[in-house]
C-alpha cells in the first residue's frame, strides 16, 4: 500500500480564518498519528486584507520540505487564490465557494482559472455555514469538514481540536464551529471523490517516543524549558516574538523570570548580566535586533559570559520584509561584532533541530563560556512539524560548566587563566574567594585591563581555540552527510531551513539515477573544516543552495576551504523550491558547469 503523502493548501484573506483552519488541520492529523510539515504565509496587516496561505503536508514518515504542488487546494478568497491555482498537481482537487454573497466581476471567480487537469469542487461554503451556525463566519470550518469527509478522515480528532481551540470563547462558539465542521463533513462524505488522493491507515507508534506537533519557535521555547532556562529578556520582533510569548507563559510557572526590555540592546545586556550571575539566560530577535545587539555580543565574547541569542532571520537589510523568510543574516551572526570576536553560531535545519539546538546552545554557552547564536529563519520559526521526543526525558545536560578546581590556600582566583583547552575556571559572583573583575577591555588572567601585546595575542588565541571543543560537543550533530556514500556527481552543501528542500531534491535526483549526496552543516562557527572538506572531495561538483542574494554560506565555505562551489542563491521571500534545486542538480549532473567547478 502506498504511504500517505498529501499536501493541502488553504488560501484566503486575512480574517477568513485560513491560518486557524490550517492549524486545526495539522493538529488533527498529527493527533491521528500522521507526520506533518506545515508553513503559513500571512500578511503584515492584521485583518481585512492581505493574503494568507496555510500549507500542510501530511505523510506516513516525516518529510523534510513542502511540495511545490499541493494535492488539494482550497480557495476562501478567489482574488488571492487565483494566482496560486497553478500550484495544484495534475488530478489534484480545487475546492472553492460556489455561492459567493455578492456579484462577481467577469474573470474574478476561480472556476474560470482552474486548469483542465484539476478537479473542481464548487461547494456552497457560505450557505452551509449559515445553515449550520447561523452565520457565514465558519466557512473555514465547513471547508475542513468537507476535506475530512471527502478524504475519509475520521471527524473525532478535528472536533476535539476545535473544542480545544475555541474553548476560551465559550461553549457556544465551540458548538457553532463544530456544527460548521459537521455540515462540511456531511457534504464531503456525500461527494463522489474523483481525485486520487488517499489517506492510508497508520501502524502503531513506538512506545519509547512521543510525537508532538511544534512550530520552530515553539520547539525553541520547549528546548529552553527543557534545558532549564532561568531568565529571558526580549523585545518583540517578527518572526521571533512567539518565542518570547511562549516563554512568558511557561517560565513563571516554573518560578523563572521573563522581562520585556525597552529595546534589544537592553535585552542583550540583561542576558549578559544574568549569565554573569550564573543563570541560564537568553534573548531572541531578528536581523534588525541583532544589529543592535552586536556591540553587547562582543562584550560577552570578551568577558567570556555564557548567553544564548536566538535569531530568526527575515528579508533584509534594515526593516526589510518582516513577514518573508530569508537566510541573509549569516554574515551578521558570524562577523557582526567588531574585533576578532568569534563566538558559536549554530543553525538547525528542521523543527526537531530547533528543539535540540536550543537545549544544546545552553550547554555550549556554559561549557565554552561564550555567546551562542542560534540562527533560525521565518520559514523555520513558523513552520510546524511533528517532532519525536524521547519519553525518557529531555536530552540536555543541566550543568555543562567545566568543573572548577578547588583553590589552594592563598591561591588567587584567575577568571581568565590560560589553560590547555582555553577554558578557564568559571566562578560566579558570591563564590567564596573568587572575587574577580570582568570588563570589555582586554585583560590579563585576573581580569584586570591589560593592553600588552603578548597578553592580547594569548587571550585572542584562547578565545578562539576554546571554541574548537564545540566541534566535538557531546550528542550534537555538527554536520551530517546523507545520500549516496563514496564518490558522487553532485553534492548539496546546505545550512538552515533550506536543507529540507535539499534533502527532498536529493531523493528526487537519486530516483532519477543521479549519484547524489547532501550535507547539512549545523555548526557554522567554529566551522567543521574536516568533514566538509571530506564531503567536497567526494563530489564532482558541490552546489550550495541558500536563500540570500550574496551567497553568504558559499563565501564562508570557499573562504575556509579555498575550493570552488556552485551557488544557488535566491531571495524569493519564500522557501527555496525543491524543483529549483533539482533543476540545478540535473544541470550539474549533465556536466554543464564543469568549467566553473574545476
Amino acid at each position, binding site marked *: 500500500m502506498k504511504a500517505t503523502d498529501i499536501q493541502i493548501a488553504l488560501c484566503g484573506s486575512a480574517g477568513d480564518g485560513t491560518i486557524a483552519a490550517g492549524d486545526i488541520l495539522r493538529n488533527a492529523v498529527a493527533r491521528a498519528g500522521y507526520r506533518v510539515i506545515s508553513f503559513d504565509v500571512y500578511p503584515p496587516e492584521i485583518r481585512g486584507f492581505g493574503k494568507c496561505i496555510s500549507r500542510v503536508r501530511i505523510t506516513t514518515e516525516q518529510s523534510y520540505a513542502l511540495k511545490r504542488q499541493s494535492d488539494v487546494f482550497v480557495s476562501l478568497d478567489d482574488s488571492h487564490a487565483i494566482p496560486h491555482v497553478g500550484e495544484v498537481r495534475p488530478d489534484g482537487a480545487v475546492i472553492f465557494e460556489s455561492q459567493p454573497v*455578492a456579484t*462577481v*466581476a*467577469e474573470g474574478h471567480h476561480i472556476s*474560470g482559472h482552474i486548469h483542465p*487537469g484539476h478537479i473542481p469542487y464548487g461547494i456552497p461554503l457560505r450557505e452551509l455555514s449559515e445553515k449550520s451556525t447561523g452565520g457565514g463566519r465558519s466557512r473555514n470550518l465547513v471547508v475542513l469538514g468537507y476535506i475530512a469527509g471527502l478524504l475519509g478522515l475520521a471527524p473525532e480528532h478535528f472536533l476535539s481540536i476545535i473544542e480545544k481551540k475555541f474553548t476560551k470563547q465559550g461553549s457556544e462558539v465551540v458548538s457553532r464551529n463544530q456544527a460548521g465542521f459537521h455540515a462540511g463533513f456531511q457534504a464531503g462524505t456525500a461527494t*463522489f471523490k474523483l481525485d486520487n488522493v488517499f489517506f492510508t491507515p497508520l501502524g502503531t507508534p513506538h512506545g519509547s517516543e512521543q510525537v508532538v506537533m511544534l512550530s520552530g519557535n515553539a520547539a525553541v521555547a520547549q528546548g529552553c524549558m527543557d534545558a532549564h532556562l532561568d531568565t529571558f529578556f526580549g523585545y518583540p520582533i517578527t518572526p521571533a516574538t512567539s518565542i518570547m510569548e511562549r516563554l512568558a507563559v511557561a517560565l513563571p510557572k516554573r518560578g523563572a523570570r521573563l522581562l520585556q526590555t525597552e529595546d534589544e540592546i537592553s535585552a542583550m545586556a540583561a542576558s549578559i548580566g544574568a549569565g554573569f550571575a550564573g543563570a541560564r539566560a537568553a534573548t531572541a530577535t531578528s536581523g534588525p535586533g541583532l544589529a543592535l545587539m552586536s556591540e553587547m555580543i562582543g562584550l560577552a565574547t570578551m568577558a567570556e559570559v555564557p548567553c544564548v541569542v536566538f535569531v530568526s532571520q527575515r528579508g533584509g537589510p534594515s526593516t526589510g520584509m518582516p513577514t518573508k523568510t530569508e537566510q541573509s543574516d549569516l554574515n551578521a551572526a558570524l562577523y557582526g561584532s567588531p574585533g576578532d570576536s568569534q563566538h558559536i553560531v549554530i543553525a538547525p535545519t528542521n523543527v526537531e533541530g530547533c528543539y535540540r539546538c536550543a537545549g544544546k546552545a545552553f550547554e555550549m554557552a556554559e561549557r565554552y563560556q561564550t555567546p551562542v547564536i542560534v540562527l533560525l529563519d521565518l520559514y523555520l520559526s513558523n513552520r510546524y512539524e511533528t517532532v519525536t521526543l524521547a519519553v525518557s526525558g529531555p536530552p540536555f545536560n543541566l550543568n555543562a560548566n567545566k568543573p572548577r578546581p578547588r583553590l589552594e590556600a592563598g591561591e588567587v582566583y584567575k577568571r581568565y587563566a590560560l589553560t590547555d583547552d582555553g577554558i578557564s575556571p568559571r566562578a560566579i559572583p558570591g563564590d567564596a574567594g573568587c572575587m574577580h573583575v570582568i570588563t570589555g577591555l582586554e585583560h590579563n588572567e585576573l581580569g584586570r585591563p591589560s593592553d600588552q601585546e603578548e597578553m592580547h595575542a594569548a587571550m585572542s588565541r584562547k578565545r578562539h581555540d576554546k571554541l574548537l571543543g564545540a566541534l566535538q560537543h557531546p550528542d550534537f550533530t555538527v554536520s551530517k552527510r546523507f545520500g549516496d556514500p563514496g564518490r558522487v556527481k553532485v553534492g548539496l552543501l546546505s545550512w538552515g531551513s533550506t536543507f529540507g528542500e535539499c534533502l527532498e531534491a536529493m531523493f528526487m535526483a537519486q530516483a532519477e539515477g543521479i549519484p547524489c549526496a547532501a550535507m547539512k552543516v549545523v555548526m557554522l562557527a567554529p566551522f567543521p573544516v574536516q568533514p566538509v572538506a571530506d564531503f567536497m572531495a567526494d563530489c564532482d561538483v558541490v552546489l550550495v543552495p541558500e536563500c540570500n542574494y550574496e551567497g553568504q554560506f558559499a563565501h564562508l565555505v570557499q573562504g575556509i576551504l579555498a575550493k570552488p562551489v556552485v551557488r544557488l542563491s535566491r531571495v524569493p521571500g519564500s522557501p527555496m523550491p525543491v524543483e529549483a534545486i533539482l533543476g540545478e542538480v540535473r544541470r550539474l549532473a549533465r556536466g554543464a558547469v564543469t568549467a566553473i567547478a574545476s
Partner: protein
Amino acid sequence: MTAHHASPSVPPHRYVIIGNGVAGNQAAEGLRSRDPEGLVTIITNNRLLFYNRYLLPLLFRSHKDWRELQSHSADYYQKHRIRVIRDVRVTAVDAGRRQVMLAHKEPITYDTLLVATGGRSYLPEELADSRHLLNSFGTYEQAMAVKKALPDRGTVVMLGGDMIGLDLARTLLSIDCRVVLVTHETTFWPHQVTPEVRMEFLNVLRDMGMDVIDGDAAGGVTAIEPGTAGLPARRVVFRQGGDVYGDVVMPFYGLVPSVEFMMGSGTDIERGILVGTNLRTNDNHIFAAGDVCQIWSEQEHAYRFYYGYQNVRAMGAVAASNMTGGNEHFAITQNGSLSRDGRGHIDSSFWAYD
C-alpha cells in the same frame, strides 16, 4: 473556410458554449480550427472533462477509472486553448447584454453563444417525492453510486426502460444481475414503436432474461419506499396494489431538454430550443445543438428532436461552421428502429456511437 480573422485592432471573437457533451465538444473543435484566434469557452455543471457516457454500462463489467472514459486529455484542451469552466451552473442568458449568468453570480460575455445543454432524465411528477430513493444514470458519479449500491447478482428495478436503460440492462444481465422492467409509454424511447413492435420487443427482452411487468396494467408506479429489514433496499409500489423489490431502482423515462435557464432570453422555445437546419435560433448571436434543440423539418412541417451520437456530433460541426460565418445545414445521419442481433437479442442504431 475561416470566417473570423483576428487582426491586432480587432479583439478575438468570444465563443461561449454551454454544455460539455458531444455537441459542445464537437463544436469547440470546429471553432478552434476555423478561428484559430477566437476565445473558446465551454461552461458545464459537470466536474469532469468530456467523457464518453455511452461507455458507462461498462463500469459494471470491469473497474474503469473516469480517466479511461475521457474523450480528450487535459492537454488537449490546453493545446487547443479551449477553456472549460467546470462545476458551475448557468442560470440565465441575457441576450441584450450578450451575457451568460452563472449561479455564482458571474457574467460571461459572448459574441456568439452555442447552447448545447442536452437533456436530463425525465421523472414523472408522482415520483418527485421519491427522488432520493432513485438512482439516476447520467454521469460517472451516478453510475459509480449504482455500482456501489448493487450487491453481487443483485436486482435492479428499471422504471420506463428507454434505450439508455436497456443498454445498461444488457450489461447487467450479462453479469448475472436480475433486471425487472416496469414498462411505461417511454419504454424504447427515443424509438417510437407501434403496439405490435412494442409487444415483439418486450418478448425479446423476456427471452434475454428480463422480468417484464406491464406498468400500465399495474396502474403505474405510485411510490418508492425503503425496503424493510431482510428484504432488498427498495420497494416499488403500484397503484393497483402489488409491489416489487429491488436493490436499486432506476428511472429511465427518456430525456427532457435542459432549457430552463433560457427562459427569459427571448429565444424561441417549445420543448427544446427552436432552430432551423442551420442551427440558428431567432437570435442572431445564439445557436443551439444536440439533444437540447428542436430542428425544423421541412418534410414534417414541425420542429423535431434528433437523438443519437452521430446526429448530435453532426450538429456540433454544423453549429461551429455557422458560428464562424458558414452556411451549412444539418442533415440526419442516424435514424432507425429496433432490430435484433445475431443472437436474437435487441439491438438499435441508437447504440452505435462510433
